[in-house]
């Protein structure tokens, strides 16, 4: 038996993926051992100060999530690869439905792992990359739609990854499955949290949107000014001019003094300015 200390999933096809089931299961067990050890040492103040509890999906919980995913996939007639990982992002259960593409095995597990490790739905990650955050791909993690954390309160206790033929279905299946654990909330924790300040009011999707939505404006002005001068095509010069004039108010809006609390409030208030990205 091959045992990978870190429980990494091999990226090479079905046989390797199935072989890694054992090591990652062991890793999952190690994750739970941490909790057991905590119990042993919790009588000492030393252990209390130097360890922390990890709440994670059990095998039964993982199977419930997987079953819910399979049921939803059948309902949508969307055969998919389905993976459920624990709070440590290690694989607990996996299923390959009939008719899926082999690459889905890696992608489903990768999506689940990313959702667990980023503590966010991969849909948010993909949207961030598509919105221009190219540097996010340097991590090497799979950040495609279809990975959703399983949350209980604010804690991520595991994640589900789905890969079929259609990423919209992937998301729907994963969200349905993640919500099946009693007490689970598939919504981002900050969206469910009480509003104590401006930053916590914004959900991860909103916060990402605010962070990304205005990044391109300075580029549009700079590149548009160059194109206004250099473009050979007259229509293109007109387009470039349109980009410059429609993005100047965006930048002006960002630099004007907005009332409110902090950076996000500034951005939010500026959203209400008459602007055209």
């Amino acid at each position: 038996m091959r045992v990978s200390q870190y429980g990494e999933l091999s990226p090479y096809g079905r046989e390797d993926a199935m072989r890694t089931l054992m090591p990652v299961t062991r890793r999952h067990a190690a994750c739970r051992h941490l909790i057991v050890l905590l119990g042993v040492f919790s009588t000492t103040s030393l252990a209390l100060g130097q360890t922390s509890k990890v709440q994670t999906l059990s095998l039964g919980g993982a199977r419930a999530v997987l079953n819910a995913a399979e049921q939803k996939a059948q309902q949508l007639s969307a055969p998919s690869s389905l993976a459920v990982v624990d709070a440590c992002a290690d694989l607990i259960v996996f299923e390959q439905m009939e008719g899926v593409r082999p690459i889905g095995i890696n992608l489903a597990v990768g999506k689940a792992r990313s959702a667990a490790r980023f503590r966010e739905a991969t849909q948010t990650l993909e949207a961030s990359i598509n919105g221009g955050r190219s540097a996010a791909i340097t991590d090497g993690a799979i950040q495609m739609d279809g990975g959703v954390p399983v949350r209980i309160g604010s804690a991520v206790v595991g994640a589900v990854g789905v890969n079929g033929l259609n990423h919209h279905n992937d998301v729907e299946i994963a969200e349905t499955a993640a919500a099946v654990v009693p007490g689970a909330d598939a919504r981002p924790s900050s969206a469910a949290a009480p509003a104590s300040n401006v930053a916590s009011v914004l959900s991860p999707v909103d916060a990402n949107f605010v962070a990304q939505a205005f990044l391109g404006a300075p580029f549009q002005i700079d590149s548009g000014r160059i194109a206004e001068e250099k473009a050979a095509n007259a229509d293109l010069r007109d387009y470039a001019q349109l980009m410059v004039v429609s993005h100047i108010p965006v930048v002006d809006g960002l630099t004007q003094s907005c009332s409110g609390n902090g950076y996000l409030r500034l951005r939010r208030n500026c959203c209400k300015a008459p602007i055209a990205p």
Partner: protein
Amino acid sequence: MIASLKANTGPAFDRDYVQGQVDYQKGNAALFRYEIKKGVDPDLKEFAERTLPKIEDHLQRALKLAKSDLVSGGTGE
């Protein structure tokens, strides 16, 4: 991107700029659509809904330019 735009001239510049614009507008439209669909904050969603048509208009303009012979064909490579 800015550096390559500064370095390019003639038809190569036009193609570079247009392709960059198509990618940019597509990415931006996806970001705004996602906010409309998955966002929570009503102000942000309203802003996204109000602004998306403008982005889509810009995308259509960029796509039209990318398809035009003057930009994509031209002198050939």
